[in-house]
């Protein structure tokens, strides 16, 4: 036996020592378990909170109705949208905007939207020669057949089960193809996040049972939000009692923003 070799009893005692360590470890685990479980529970709670536990997307299919006759061009919707969604205030980035159409007796159509109509519209110099004039609020049409979703190379923009087109800003690579593909000019590149951005129907509000900010603040009720499919929703009533048109129907994008009394000049 070499001097370094351990006596038999020492070797026999080794398993005892190991099992002691194991017991300590298991004890510590047992003590830590509630903490671990609590952490998981909190994390789950946070995740569930993000999705609203009582919200069932499959029970909804959203759209918006816009009554052109009711819009007075005050621009409060534009302002509310920028505030609610933290949209850059510069006049080049809009999730929603209002256009004014002035059609003169000689057949000219003049369209304006100064700063997206956020401060309203300056009055026309003379009412002489005006055949008709009206305001048209615009926003993402949340198309059922969205070209923006089709072209996104990474799937960062997508159609939710409840019919809303959203952009995942943590996934968007900023190639801007979706902006090119949108026929309505509803998208822009957020200069801060460098990702594509657009109207979400205020999805964070909708899942809480609220209406989008623009609908909330409209003083004339020109915007109606709700379920397209539910028979009793305000939107269903709107669609039933008005003659409805959508923008650029020839492009087969199947918009879910429905306009009542839309003029043929509007593109």
């Amino acid at each position, binding site marked *: 036996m070499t001097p370094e070799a351990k006596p038999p009893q020492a070797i026999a005692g080794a398993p005892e020592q190991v099992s002691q360590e194991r017991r300590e470890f298991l004890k510590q685990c047992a003590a830590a378990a509630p903490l671990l479980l609590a952490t998981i529970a909190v994390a789950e709670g946070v995740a569930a909170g993000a999705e609203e536990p009582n919200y069932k997307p499959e029970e909804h299919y959203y759209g918006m109705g816009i009554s052109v006759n009711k819009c007075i061009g005050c621009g409060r919707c534009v302002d509310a949208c920028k505030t609610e969604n933290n949209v850059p205030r*510069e*006049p*080049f*980035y*809009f999730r929603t*905007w209002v*256009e004014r159409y002035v059609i003169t007796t000689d057949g000219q*159509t*003049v*369209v*304006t*939207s100064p*700063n*997206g109509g956020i401060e309203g519209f300056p009055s026309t110099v003379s009412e002489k020669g005006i055949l008709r004039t009206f305001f048209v609020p*615009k926003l993402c049409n949340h198309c059922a057949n969205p*070209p923006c*979703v*089709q*072209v*996104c*190379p*990474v*799937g960062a923009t997508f159609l939710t089960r409840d019919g809303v087109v959203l952009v995942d800003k943590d*996934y*968007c*690579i*900023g*190639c*801007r*193809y979706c*902006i*090119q*593909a*949108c*026929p*309505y*000019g*509803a*998208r*822009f*590149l957020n*200069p*801060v*996040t*460098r*990702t594509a951005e657009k109207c979400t129907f205020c999805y964070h509000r909708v899942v809480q049972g609220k209406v989008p900010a623009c609908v909330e603040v409209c003083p004339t009720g020109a915007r109606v939000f709700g379920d397209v499919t539910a028979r009793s929703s305000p939107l269903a009533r709107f669609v039933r009692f008005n003659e409805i048109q959508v923008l650029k129907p020839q*492009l087969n994008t199947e918009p879910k923003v429905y306009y009542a009394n839309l003029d043929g000049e509007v*593109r």
Partner: protein
Amino acid sequence: MQGLTEQLNNVLQQVSGYIYPNEVELQWSLLIVVYPYITGLVAGAFILASLERVFNVKEVEPTYRLALLTALAFLLIAPLPLLLHLGHPERSLEIFLTPNTHSAMAMFGFIYAWYLAVVLLLEIWFDYRRDLVLWARNEHGLRRWIHLILTLGATDISEAAVEFDRKAVRFITIIGIPSAFLLHGYVGFIFGSVKANPWWSSVLIPIVFLFSAIVSGIALVLILYLLTGLVRRGFEMACLDKLASFLFYALILDFSLEILDFIHRLYEAEESIKILSTLISTRLFLSLIVLQALTGTVLPLLCLAFVSPAFGRPLVRFPEELRRLVYLGSAVLIQIGIFSTRWNVVIGGQLFSKSLRGLTVYKMALTGMEGLFVSVVLLAVPFVLLYIFVKLLPPWKESSPTQPPEGAAGD
């Protein structure tokens, strides 16, 4: 952000008619003009190279390797303008990892990888393999090692092995032609499939892109062959004449397709015709009518028609020196014309509003990522790469070792 706001405020002052407020910022700028221009050169140069291999056009043989190396140099740079343009370049790999299979753009990575790895690199390798082995045997120092590594250990240059190489090259070229069509046709499809944009949305766009690519590729190789010929003091006039003839044929096809597209739009006179007519006669007058159509197409067409033997024999017999000068001038004009074509598609397609009621302007910056300098550098880098490639893998006939050194064959 401050600079951007200032720039957009300037643009806003120059908008005519009505544009959607989100349209003030032009989304795809100079970098995206450079991208299809570069891929066009790649596809064109490759198709020229395949003329010799597949269609046995012996006259253009001296340009075969030069064309392949040119295609490679430009292909390596092709993704850079796209990458630099992204809002989040660090997420670019998502295109490969989690592609949206419905997106045309998502196919970029796969088409690019296929073209680079399967077509171009493989063809160059098979074509050069015998020479690499022989060079490595005769050389010393770093060059020897580079050439030896490039053989990838395949040093068999027996007749059977070389014959296999030859067959492989032919096979890859045959696959390569549709691949080159795919590479550039795909770029055209990116634009042609945007139904929201009447300037882009046309089934002819990918085909027009393809033919303009062939034109630009042949023109570039012609320029390179001429210039390198001046330095090396030697070129084959028959080759230049053939190149010029092919350039003429390709240009005729390209021009016919463009005219067809133009007439078709004019005759159909859809909703967008008014704004597009205004666009052409104002914002695009210089780049479309003057640069693309007149000096980039009609003028070189006339020059080549008279000087090159495109109709069997030249209409006017010029001395060789003058012929070379006309070829060079025509090819340079064609390059300017094709670059203008890309400009007119990419920038032109964003100068009018999708409301079809107004026009905006494009303010090209000099500095910054989207500026002129970056694009000039991006266009210059392929020439530096090409210089290195030519030094490492001389594409000239006289550089190719004709006789294996004694006792070296078949090891």
